């Protein structure tokens, strides 16, 4: 029994010593949960944060005193960040995901709504063009719109809000709403798989990029790097081959993932096909240059893999692949603009279910190529060409 106990203690001690002597792994075990918990705490509110304003657009096609009062009330509501626009611009913003909802107050709204409130006449039809990938904002917009309309009616009719209304049992909204998802075409319903495939495709292809980088580190450890470097090849050829092979692998993987999405989940490229291809190519280059950056910064394959997965998860979270970016605090939304995954996910969304044209792909393509060049430049600068000495 005592021999067993001695052996058991020695084995336990060995495991503890080995684990706690690996400082990088230890740091990851502590830093990762703290960082991710901090992220979700920031996203879902810690109580002290100023609430994020929901971007909406409002179209006043009526121009009446009531519609103007409603627009003013919405603009004064700290829940919203309101832009007053013409209908085509407002709908376009919703389609691009720049606003969650575009509210269209129709002609006749000011005349029909007070009467409808009192129980007589036709109701005006308010159209709500909403971004279906962020439809969670729609019920909130509906509720606050109703509140502001009722308040405006009271103010414009010279009565206190709620004071001269109809009996509560007979209450209904004094206008009708028509919610329209801003998909590529009116007859194409929103397909939630399209956004999921963009997010998860980006995440797992970046994981492949990590393997590219770790592969370089393993090659160096195994001596393959020595053999490759001894060959009559320029550094540009050697590093360029890794960038191109990684990019080709990423491109093939993305093609297979989207082929499955199209064949099985009815995802469609409703926007520009050249734009989709452009974003895919730019993202593939980003993936491989990210892998090379990992190889340049990393020391050992084991430690580097853990750190790179952590960095990738943070990038993917900030990119909006897990939770929609609009629920981020404002500062985090700003930060996410300098995260390449955000451009990749938004770009793929734009070219698939949003159905946007090539113009909407230019921004993501330029951003992804910029990050690719930045990562590659840092990788080349930091890359340890010299063999570890023995």
């Amino acid at each position, binding site marked *: 029994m005592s021999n067993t106990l001695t052996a058991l203690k020695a084995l336990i001690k060995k495991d503890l010593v080995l684990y706690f002597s690996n400082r990088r792994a230890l740091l990851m075990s502590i830093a990762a949960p703290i960082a991710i918990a901090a992220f979700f705490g920031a996203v879902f509110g810690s109580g002290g944060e100023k609430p994020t304003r929901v971007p909406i657009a409002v179209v006043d096609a009526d121009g009446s005193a009531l519609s103007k009062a409603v627009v003013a009330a919405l603009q004064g509501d700290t829940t919203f960040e309101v832009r007053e626009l013409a209908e085509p611009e407002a709908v376009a913003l919703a389609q691009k995901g720049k606003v969650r909802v575009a509210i269209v107050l129709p002609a006749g709204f000011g005349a029909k709504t007070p009467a409808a409130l009192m129980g007589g006449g036709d109701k005006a039809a308010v159209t709500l063009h909403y971004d279906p990938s962020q439809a969670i904002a729609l019920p909130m917009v509906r509720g606050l719109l109703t509140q502001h309309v009722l308040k405006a009616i009271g103010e414009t009719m010279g009565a206190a809000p709620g004071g001269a209304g109809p009996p509560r049992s007979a209450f209904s909204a004094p206008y009708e709403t028509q919610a329209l998802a801003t998909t590529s075409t009116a007859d194409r319903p929103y397909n939630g798989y399209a956004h999921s495939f963009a997010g998860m495709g980006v995440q797992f292809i970046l994981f492949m990029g990590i393997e590219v980088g770790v592969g370089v580190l393993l090659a160096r*450890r*195994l*001596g*393959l790097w*020595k*053999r*490759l*470097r*001894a*060959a*009559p*090849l*320029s550094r540009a050829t050697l590093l360029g081959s890794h960038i191109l092979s990684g990019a080709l692998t990423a491109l093939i993987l993305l093609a297979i993932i989207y082929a499955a999405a199209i064949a099985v989940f009815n995802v469609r490229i409703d926007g520009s096909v050249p734009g989709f291809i452009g974003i895919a190519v730019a993202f593939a280059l980003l993936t491989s240059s990210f892998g090379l950056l990992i190889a340049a910064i990393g020391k050992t394959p084991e430690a580097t893999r853990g750190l790179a997965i952590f960095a990738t998860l943070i990038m993917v979270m900030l990119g909006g692949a897990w939770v929609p970016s609009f629920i981020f605090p404002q500062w985090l939304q700003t930060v996410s603009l300098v995260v390449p995954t955000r451009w990749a996910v938004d770009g793929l969304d734009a070219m698939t279910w949003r159905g946007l044209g090539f113009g909407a792909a230019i921004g993501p393509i330029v951003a992804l190529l910029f990050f690719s060049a930045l990562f590659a430049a840092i990788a080349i600068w930091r890359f340890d060409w*010299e*063999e570890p*000495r*023995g």
Partner: protein
Amino acid sequence: MLEARGLCKSYGSRAVVSDLSLAVAGGEIVGLLGPNGAGKSTTVAMLCGLVAADAGEVFVGEGAARQRLTEDSQAPRRRIGVVPQELSIYENLGTEANLALFGALYGLSGTLLAERVAAALALVGLADRARDKPSTFSGGMKRRLNIAAALVHDPDILIFDEPTVGVDPQSRNAIFDNLEELRRRGKALLYTTHYMEEAERLCDRIVIVDHGKVVASDTLAGIERLLPATQVLEIEVDGLVDLAALGALPGIDGVTQQGELLRAGIADLGCNAPALLSALAASGRRVSRVTSARPGLEDVFLSLTGKQLRD
């Protein structure tokens, strides 16, 4: 065929290689020996162009074809084949595909590449396993493929960095046969090893380095002449002995003990051996066996560096 002149390399304030020169001619195997940390790996890295020397030069080729090797030069590299100590092959790529890849790195393609791949596989005895993946090979077969990968572009110079580590005797002999065949073909071979018997069997000349400097460079016979003793006495004793006291005896030097085996260089068996045995008896040690032999490379190495080769 391969010449290094005055190579120097330091890392920080530590000089790893200092003014090291060596040359390897075609049809010759030169052994590069030294204890761990002597600067062998750094020297090999400079000879392959992997590490830039702080000072000194490396030349490849002879006569009009002689070229200086630098970190960025490509043409001289085509004439060098490197067999790293580590297995430098892709285990999940087919054997033929591995060699085709390494040949392509040197600009080979088409029929010529196929011929060279076949020739390299034939030389190392793996022609019948061309389609198999190295992951299915024994350690010895992987080592032979590791060598074939350096041969596929038919280089004039081959640099072997301990190519037989962890290899069974049968595979080791097969590798030696390969190396001797390459020498017959006129290749210049530089061979670093920890195994004295390999150096003794294979090498036409031996360069011993320590602390980054060449401490001896000659043929095996010439190296052995560096040792003043003409014989080595091996004595089995039943306990530890005072090595310093024995080494102080006339005509005795290089006294070492490993377990029960005592080794001593001895200038004259007839004159000096009795005094040595008497000293052992006087110290209370019982001698159970005595043999004598000519001094070997290991004795010379020990004498020059003061270290076992595996230290």
